[in-house]
């Protein structure tokens, strides 16, 4: 059997170590060949376990894993054509950069000449030629990561699995290496599965973002879909950038629900795909923080806008925008990202009474579970 392409299919994957608690609880997913897919979730959500099962370091309790259309459960990593980049990189401390990268060829019994040639080519590709004789301890975090990448890529895998690849780096380097990962993925033309708990990292780099919670997939799709159109409160809050507000439906008017709560009066939210709700239901809806704008109460505004009277609780300058934290709506944060040029035309101060408003159709009804 030879795996010829890097498409991945997970069918009903369950993993349980003790027979009762399921670390991974029924995951179904298709990742096309040559995609960059990010598993996103807090620690303990099962994302790393899924990665390790795809890699062949663990077997699923139930379910099938198909790579390139072939069932691979039970096969060793080499036969799966996968390679893994470990969280701490797991570079061999006693081998220099060249020998680390050549390791896979060495254990396959590739001749010295051929091994040297292939290794040097790979070293060139990750731009480590000057450092080829250094030991891992003599490299910076970013350089270590490139060695780990090269070591994993030298066998020509169809799928590269990356476990929190950027978590060991400092902020600046993280952004730089993120770009480098994207470049390598295009260069190698293979599938990347990248596990992370940082949403910025995931949406910046991935074609497909898979958001996980407690062993289950919450939402999977293109980065922009997941960020802009979260399904429920969990996804919206995890990806950030959204206000998630709870209220009660007072009545349904055509395609919209009229929502009320202690602090909100007659906020109109389009139903979108959530047509099963009815009057009296408790619901969540989301409005992007940068869709919220603030006006002083005397100005008012058009009737096409949803309006919530509030008060400025804190102001944080963020450079290109200003984060204005308003009084909570029930237990939920209400935050507006105001472009800094707009904000400083007529700056608010803490304690000011404001009307937070947004265009009605920008709000999105969320699923409630």
């Amino acid at each position, binding site marked *: 059997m030879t795996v010829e392409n890097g498409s991945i299919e997970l069918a009903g994957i369950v993993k349980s170590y003790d027979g009762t608690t399921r670390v991974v609880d029924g995951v179904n997913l298709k990742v096309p060949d040559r995609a960059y897919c990010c598993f996103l979730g807090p620690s303990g959500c099962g994302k790393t376990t899924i990665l390790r099962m795809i*890699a*062949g*370091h663990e077997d699923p309790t139930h379910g099938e894993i198909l790579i390139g259309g072939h069932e691979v459960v039970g096969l*060793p*990593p*080499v036969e799966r054509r*996968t*390679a*893994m980049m*470990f*969280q*701490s990189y*797991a570079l*061999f*401390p*006693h*081998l220099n950069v060249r020998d680390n990268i050549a*390791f*896979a060829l*060495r*254990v*396959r019994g590739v001749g010295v000449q051929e091994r040297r040639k292939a290794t040097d080519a790979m070293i060139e590709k990750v731009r480590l030629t000057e450092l080829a004789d*250094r*030991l891992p*301890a*003599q*490299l*910076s*975090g970013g350089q*270590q990561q490139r060695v780990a990448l090269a*070591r*994993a890529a030298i*066998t020509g895998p169809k799928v590269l699995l990356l476990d929190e690849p950027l978590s*060991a780096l400092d902020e600046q380097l993280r952004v730089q290496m993120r770009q480098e990962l994207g470049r390598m993925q295009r260069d190698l033309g293979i599938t990347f599965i990248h596990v992370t708990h940082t949403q910025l990292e995931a949406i910046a780099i991935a074609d497909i973002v898979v958001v996980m919670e407690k062993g289950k997939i919450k939402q999977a799709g293109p980065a922009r879909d997941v960020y802009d159109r979260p399904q429920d409160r969990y996804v919206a809050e995890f990806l950030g950038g959204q206000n998630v507000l709870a209220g009660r439906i007072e009545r349904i008017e055509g395609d919209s629900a009229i929502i009320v709560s202690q602090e909100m009066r007659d906020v109109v939210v389009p139903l979108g795909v959530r047509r099963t709700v009815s009057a009296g239901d408790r619901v969540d809806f989301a409005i992007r923080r940068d869709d919220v704008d603030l006006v002083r109460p005397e100005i008012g505004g058009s009737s096409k806008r949803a309006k919530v009277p509030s008060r400025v609780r804190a102001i944080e300058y963020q450079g290109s925008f200003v984060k204005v934290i308003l009084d909570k709506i029930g237990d939920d944060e209400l935050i507006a990202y105001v472009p800094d040029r707009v904000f400083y035309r007529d700056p608010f101060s803490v304690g000011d009474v404001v009307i937070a408003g947004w265009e009605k159709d920008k709000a999105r009804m969320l699923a409630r579970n």
Partner: protein
Amino acid sequence: MTDFANADADSVPIRRRRALAPSSNGRPWTFYVLATLFTLYVIALYGPMVCIYILSFQDVRGGLVFPMRGTSLHWFVDLFTQVRTGDVKGAFSRSIRLAVVVTIITVVISFLSGLAFRKRFAGDSVVFYLMIGSLVAPGLVLGIGVGLICNVLGIETSWYTTALGAQLSWTLPFGVLVMFAVMSRLDSAWEEAARDLGASAWQTIFLVIVPILAPGLVAVALFGFTLSYDEFTRTLLTAGSLNTLPLEIWSMTLNVTSPSLYALGTVTTLISFIIIGLCLGTIARIQKRRVSGPAVH
């Protein structure tokens, strides 16, 4: 803006510095008390040995007590040429050979059991406590027991069979305990990475685990060697007719009344130090090779 930066920098640190330094010249009186205690301890520890080394360099008139009578290497020559001082050369060569065999067996078995104990296995805690048991059992009792059983079974005791076994009962638990400490630093990600890259189980052991653990294995070897080289209580009743070096020294204290005895002490100490130095040097070299340069993690 400079006002913000300097506002409280002047007053706070000075008060703190006073609180941390009670005596005028920077060191509290307790430092001198403890330093004196430590010095006395070192003198008590090494003084007697140093006396023996000094007395071994007397000339032919030399006796067993101070004052020194001349200086020469007479007693060292005497040690290796005179038959009346006993079979020092033979005992020495037996001890070295025995220690080498003990070292090899200790390193191999400790390494393998270290690997075994990383994974839980049925009865692992029983094995562990049995091991600790043999560590705390009085050596002489263990030696007598081995001698007794050999007597009952009609096995002839000798330094390379029964004494070897008796010594291993001492060095193995030590080696395994050291190995536990060494193994605790072995990140299983290295093994997984090796497997991920296609290495077989054997390749993983010889290309990854052994080289990474090399400093620890040298430390285990050092333990094995030195513990065997000066083992006395367990060897006393199990070595049979030919003596190891510690047994030879002991018998010399009973019947040799010349500074040769001290010369022997000097020589054996020197050999111990050379071996310890070699081992520590090797470990230091391996460590240095790995961490030199700008280590960034």
